[in-house]
Structure formats: structure tokens, C-alpha cells
């Protein structure tokens, strides 16, 4: 019940900030249309097929990583604006606060991912099967949990939003660009291929592709195992760092 009310709070906040929903859809949509149509013919000539179909799962991954890290980082605001104190003096363990917030943030990111999926389908993305579209939703949620927990960890270590730009430019952007969201992972230079292997988002995007367009680099089984392990580790670390937050 307590975890539910924390979850509900996040959902209400999300649904009420229409400008935020629209704002965070603009970027993925721009990527999808500009790159999708811009590189489409080159991609086709290289014999790889339809670039929009390849790119859409990557863009879904993009909207999920940005939204979930952001909702995790919102703890800094809760702290600065005092609401975290209200939660911290309530008879509830810190771990449950963190769990409630993380599930709420991940739900928001998943909703955002679903909206991007639907938009992509309107703009020319053709998933292979309807089953895949349904099955991809829980996988989106797993990826969202992973990055919300990462955001929570970052938020616990930062004092204010001053460090936010740094995190975006040196952590989130590289995680996105090096994940294979925009390009195929086959035949990459050795270094880039190793980096992609170390990037959790690579497995997320690969799993989305596996379900949506039946094309996978690592294999869906391996994707899910790695995502689950990293999510568990990040949730544990997120909980640990969250406990250390001083009000």
C-alpha cells in the first residue's frame, strides 16, 4: 500500500506535466525522422534493408534511458524542495521508499517508451508481429528499472543539479550513442565492439530488436539474463546509496 502510493504519486506527476511529456517526445521523434529518413537510402544501398525498422527500437531505448535516468535524478529535487523529508520521517524503511520511487519512475519511462513505439509505427515503423509488440513492454520495464536505479544512485551522490549536465554529457549520452541504438553491432571495429558489450543499453536495444523485428546480435536469452543481473545489482547499489542520503 505504501509502495503503491509512492508509485501513484509518480504517475500523477507524470500525467499532469503535459509539457514534459511533449518535450521529451520531441527529441526521439527528431532522431527517428531525421536519421531514419536521412540515412534510409544509404542503409538500403548497403543491403541492410529498412533503416526506420532498424532504428525505431533504438529510439525507444533512447527515450527510456533519458526518461528513467531523469526520474531517478528527480530525487535531488525532492530533497531540495523538502518532500523527501516528508517521506524520510514517515514510518517506512528507506529501502521501501527507494523501491516505490524506482518502480514509479520505471513505469513512467515505460509509458514514454510505449508512446514512442506508437509514434514510430505511425511514421513508418513495421514491427514483425503483434505478439512482439506486447512482449516488448515488460522488457522495456526491465530496462527502465535498470536506468531508474542508476539515476537514483547518481542522485544520491550529487548534492544539487549542478552536476546534472556533467552526468548527461559524460555518462548518458555515451551510453546511448555507443549502444548500437543507431547502428548495427555486426562488423564493428574491435574497440567499439568491446565498449558496446560493456554498455547495458546495448542489451536492452538488442532485446527490443529481437522482439520487434526478429533481429538480434547477442540473442534474446543472453540479453534478458544480462539485463536482469545488472538491474538487480543497480537496485542493490541504489538502495545502498539512497540510505546514505543526508537530509
Amino acid at each position, binding site marked *: 500500500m505504501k509502495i503503491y502510493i509512492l508509485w501513484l504519486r509518480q504517475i500523477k506527476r507524470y500525467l499532469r506535466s503535459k509539457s514534459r511529456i511533449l*518535450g521529451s517526445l520531441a527529441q526521439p521523434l527528431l532522431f527517428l525522422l531525421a536519421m531514419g529518413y536521412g540515412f534510409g537510402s544509404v542503409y538500403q544501398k548497403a543491403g541492410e534493408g529498412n533503416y526506420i525498422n532498424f532504428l525505431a527500437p533504438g529510439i525507444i531505448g533512447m527515450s527510456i534511458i533519458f526518461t528513467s535516468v531523469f526520474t531517478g535524478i528527480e530525487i535531488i529535487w525532492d530533497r531540495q524542495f*523538502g518532500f523527501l523529508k516528508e517521506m524520510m520521517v*514517515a*514510518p*517506512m524503511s528507506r529501502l521501501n521508499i527507494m523501491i516505490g520511487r524506482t518502480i514509479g519512475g520505471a513505469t513512467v519511462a515505460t509509458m514514454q517508451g510505449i508512446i514512442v513505439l506508437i509514434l514510430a509505427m505511425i511514421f513508418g515503423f513495421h514491427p514483425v508481429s503483434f505478439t512482439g509488440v506486447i512482449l516488448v513492454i515488460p522488457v522495456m520495464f526491465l530496462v527502465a528499472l535498470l536506468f531508474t536505479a542508476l539515476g537514483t544512485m547518481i542522485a544520491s551522490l550529487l548534492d544539487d*543539479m*549542478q552536476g546534472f549536465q556533467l552526468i548527461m554529457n559524460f555518462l548518458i549520452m555515451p551510453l546511448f550513442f555507443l549502444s548500437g541504438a543507431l547502428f548495427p553491432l555486426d562488423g564493428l571495429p574491435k574497440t567499439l565492439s568491446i565498449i558496446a558489450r560493456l554498455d547495458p543499453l546495448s542489451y536492452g536495444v538488442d532485446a527490443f530488436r529481437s522482439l520487434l523485428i526478429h533481429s538480434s546480435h547477442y540473442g534474446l536469452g543472453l540479453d534478458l539474463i544480462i539485463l536482469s543481473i545488472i538491474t538487480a545489482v543497480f537496485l542493490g547499489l541504489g538502495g545502498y546509496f539512497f540510505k546514505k542520503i543526508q537530509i
Partner: protein
Amino acid sequence: MALEMNNIIEVKNLTKKFGEFTAVDDISFSVNEGEIFAFLGPNGAGKSTTIKILTTLLAPTVGKVLVNGKDPVADPDLVRRSFGIVFQDTSLDDELTAWENMEFHGVLYDVPKKIRRERIESLMKFVELWDRKDSLVKEFSGGMKRRLEIARGLLHHPKIIFLDEPTLGLDPQTRNHMWEYLKDLNKKEGTTVFFTTHYMEEADRIAGKIAIIDHGKIIASGTSSELKEKTNTTSLEDAFLSLTGNVIREDQASSVDNMRASRRMWRK
């Protein structure tokens, strides 16, 4: 020293250090059940740190604290159930409505649904916010937010209510109204009131007992007339100044203002 049964708050040789800095330096005091207790001191004297320790937000470096007979470090949840708090800065979610803020609080404190709904209605009527229950808190004025926080702090019927500078920035009407209610609550329900303030006449008028803290140490305590007698002054303000000196204290720096600016930017 044995624990007296009627002491709802008991602090013994409490010290809190942040690195080299000693914020609270070996203080001892107690508050009787049903008392209205004022905790006074200049900025940076250690008031907020002490309140944070009493309310489980900080662990003491040394010393023993009992709130409603329980140790905030060993039994945080039992202590948390026994008090309500109104913080110095607002701690409402301004993207939620007034009613939702109350409901959220009631759920976190396990107030059963039926009782919760009844109490929310009567408390919000009392603070004259019931007709605004479905408005988002961000549309509220400072005074309305304060009133809502007081109503929220009382929702789970705490034995103690902590108020950290609750009347800061409120107009005299709201201030009087608030104190009338708290005095009434104190009389009828026996709720212990623990508050800090910079308005000396307020402490003089309302508090049964006063403790003055400065540089992390309690330098005087007693009733208002005892403090005046001790310092040979005629007002509590003069007594306070005679005890703490006239030097202006630096307030703690805060990055909240920067935050507000950057939040606006990111919310666009």
C-alpha cells in the same frame, strides 16, 4: 539518571559533529508530556540539528535520546509514529493537490481509510482549506501551504508535534489562528508541542518552558519569567539578547535558489 515517566522527550549529553565542526555540544534537556516547549537560539546555534536527531533524520555522534520512550536510532519507526512535524521549509509536493498530499501522508502512517478520510476533511476544514482541496499546492500562498502542513502533521494524531519556525513569513492573522488551534489541541488532547521561533513575544506568550541554545550548548532554560529574572530584564527578547549577545550570525548557505532556477529550466 533514571528516566522519568512523564518526560516525553529526554536528551542526555547529546553531541553531533560534522567532521571537525561540532553542531551540538553535549546538551541535556527534557520535555514533559503535554508541555508547550520553545527551543530558541540564533541562526546556526544547533536547533535544526537537534530537531533532526529527535525526528530520526540524523544519528547522534554521542549521547542518548528518547522520544516517547523510544530510541530514534534503534526504533526509528516507533518514534516516527509518535510525532508530527512542520519543517522550516515546505515539504509538500506542489504537483499534487492539497487533498492528495494529505492522503499520501495518511497512507504512509497507516491511518485506516475510513478514519483517514474523516480526519482529512475535518482538519482541512479547520485550516480553512477544504474548499481548495482539489487545487494543486503550487497555486497556494505561503500561508496556505503552512496551514496545510500543520493539518498534515496532525493527521496521524501524534503525541508530539515539532514545529521548526512555523510562523516564519505568516501574517499575524494566520499566526494567531495557528497558535489558537495548537493551544487548543494541547489542552484537549494533551499533545506536546515542541517549537522553534525567532519571534520572542510568541515564545513568551505561548511556551510553558523555554530552552535557549547557542554555539551548540544550552545556555539557559526555564519559564519565561525565570529567564527574565535570571538576566534581570523585563522582556524575553532582552533576556535572549543578554544571554546570546548582539553579534549577528551567518546563516547557512543554501542552493535552493539555484535549484528553483534550474528546475524551471528543466521543466519546460
